[in-house]
């Protein structure tokens, strides 16, 4: 088990280096210079040169890249060009908001997705199943920002029940969580439905029914538990996706989270902030996926036993097969 976790963490390193390289080179090779944006038109050539030297922008590409990586390992992601504060600090002040949004959305989407998915599977091909599937299909097809605007139109403008923007009270969170969560709810619903359908057809369900077990126990204990593993994976992956994909929702509802900060920084060409933010989000997403993988192994006794019993010789290929 430890070996599996260690291996997965080691695998993260080259991926993160690659992420930095991609974002770094994009910012490096893009037309327009940082000093022009930061210092403005009034700056003299000497000022600009001083700025370049101060920020290490006069060095060749690879040196800049390695300097960046070396500092990043110590947690120093540079100084934000427009606020002059450390990027790490900016990210950490904004991140809790994004995390909260993603968390609420995952809760909302899991509740919606699981209940509708289970009902759909239990009553397959019923009217209810068709309605749920249709709504789920619409849910994955709706652009998040449009859904956000429509909710705003309905609940803030027409009905006046919920505030349109801000993030202070729980009322403010309802619409953003729904907006960000509906897409995921649809994927969770589809996953729950297909896995429950598979589980319900198994022999042990027939056995449970044959021995006279109550239908509710059959569904909730026997079927759901066996269908749960892929569902947990999807929920975890959706959480990671929400952390990285919340920017547009944050823009629509004017929530000052990490996503909004990143979009603003991209427009200002605030390179250290963009690189730091994307790196941070990529890292949190990967860690979220890693945790899901570990959870996966913990929930499923079949997978867990692979890592307990099997010794070194077999553990490595098993882990390799899992990654593949």
């Amino acid at each position, binding site marked *: 088990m430890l070996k599996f976790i260690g291996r997965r963490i080691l*695998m993260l390193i*080259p*991926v*993160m280096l*690659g*992420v930095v*390289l*991609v*974002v770094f080179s*994009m*910012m490096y*090779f*893009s*037309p327009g210079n940082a000093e022009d944006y930061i210092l403005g038109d009034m700056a003299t050539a000497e000022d600009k040169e001083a700025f370049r030297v101060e920020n290490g922008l006069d060095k060749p590409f690879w040196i800049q890249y390695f300097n960046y990586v070396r500092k990043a390992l110590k947690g120093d992601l540079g100084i934000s060009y427009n606020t002059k504060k450390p990027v790490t600090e900016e990210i950490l002040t904004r991140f809790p908001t994004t995390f909260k949004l993603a968390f609420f959305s995952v809760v909302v989407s899991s509740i919606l997705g699981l209940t509708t998915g289970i009902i759909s599977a239990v009553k397959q091909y019923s009217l209810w199943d068709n309605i749920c599937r249709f709504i789920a*299909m*619409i849910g*994955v*097809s*709706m*652009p*998040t*920002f*449009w859904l956000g*605007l*429509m909710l*705003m*139109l309905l609940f803030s*403008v027409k009905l006046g029940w919920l505030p349109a923007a801000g993030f202070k009270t729980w009322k403010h969170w309802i619409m953003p969580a729904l907006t960000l969560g509906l897409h995921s709810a649809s994927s969770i619903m589809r996953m729950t439905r297909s896995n429950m359908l598979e589980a319900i057809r198994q022999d042990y369900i027939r056995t449970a029914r044959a021995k006279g077990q109550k239908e509710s126990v059959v569904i909730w204990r026997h079927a759901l538990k066996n269908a749960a593993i892929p569902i947990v994976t999807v929920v975890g992956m959706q959480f990671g*996706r929400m*952390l*990285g*994909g919340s*920017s*547009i929702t944050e*823009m629509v509802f004017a929530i000052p989270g990490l*996503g909004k900060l*990143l*979009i603003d920084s*991209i*427009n200002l*060409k605030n390179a250290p902030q*963009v690189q730091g933010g*994307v790196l941070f*989000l*990529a890292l949190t*997403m*990967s860690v979220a996926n890693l945790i899901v993988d570990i959870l996966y192994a913990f929930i499923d006794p079949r997978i867990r036993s692979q890592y307990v019993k099997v010794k070194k010789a077999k553990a490595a290929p098993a882990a390799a097969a899992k990654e*593949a």
Partner: protein
Amino acid sequence: MSKEMSTADAISMKKKSQFGDFVRRFKKNKGGIVGLLIIVMFLICALFPAQLVGEDYYSQDLSNRYCHPNAEHIFGTDELGRDVLTRMVWGARTSLEISLSAVAVSCILGTIVGCIAGFYGGVTDNILMRIMDVLMAIPSTLLGISIVAAFGSSIYVLIFAMGISSIAGFSRICRSSVITIRDQEYIEAARATGASDFRIITKYVLPNALAPIIVQISMSIAASILSISGLSFIGLGVPAPTPEWGSMLSNGRQVIRDHAYIVIFPGVAIMLAVFAFNLLGDGLRDALDPRLKS
């Protein structure tokens, strides 16, 4: 397709071609057919917008700003007095043009990467898939936004940005089906006859790995229509005079209180297009999946 599917034909299994079988199975899927019809409708809009609604999607008529939907302007007019319906029909061309080309790019590149990684395995596979992991690790919205922000917003940059962000999906799907095929006996047979790797991949591996890729194409088109509208919504999409659903929506956002129709109609168009490609993808998956054959 021209083959008549009578009961007699259905009984004699040998006469059925694979494609005929696929068409027969796809026809049974109502969702897939509905999706296909909606897509055909959008394709007609994209191919013949001038014949449908006229060429004039750009001229401003400031005396007619914010006309609510009426007989003359079925979907109303926007902040510059331009007809919303006309712009929506022309917008279909923009959206489909970009998303189809983006998916073509990512499908070709992703399939090449996936085939090479899956077919050769080992170190090649490891290196290629780690590169794909890097692309997967960056949130696709952010990757798209930063590419467009870095290189300026033009249609080509958008195609590139959308293409890059879905390469990883294609390569993974292609790789996993190539892996199941590469150890089959007919591949060994082809190798025994002295076929080159290139010939084996293109002639024997790829045709058998095609089904999941076709499904992925449909799903990716849906996803890239969504991303393009998202990028346009935050002002990084198609440059101004070109009509695009996402940017129409974004322009209407400020006046949503009084002129909600400007926001509602383009949104419905986006949703319908994405919905159709998702339905088609689902239908294709069901029709192509050999496990569902009865």
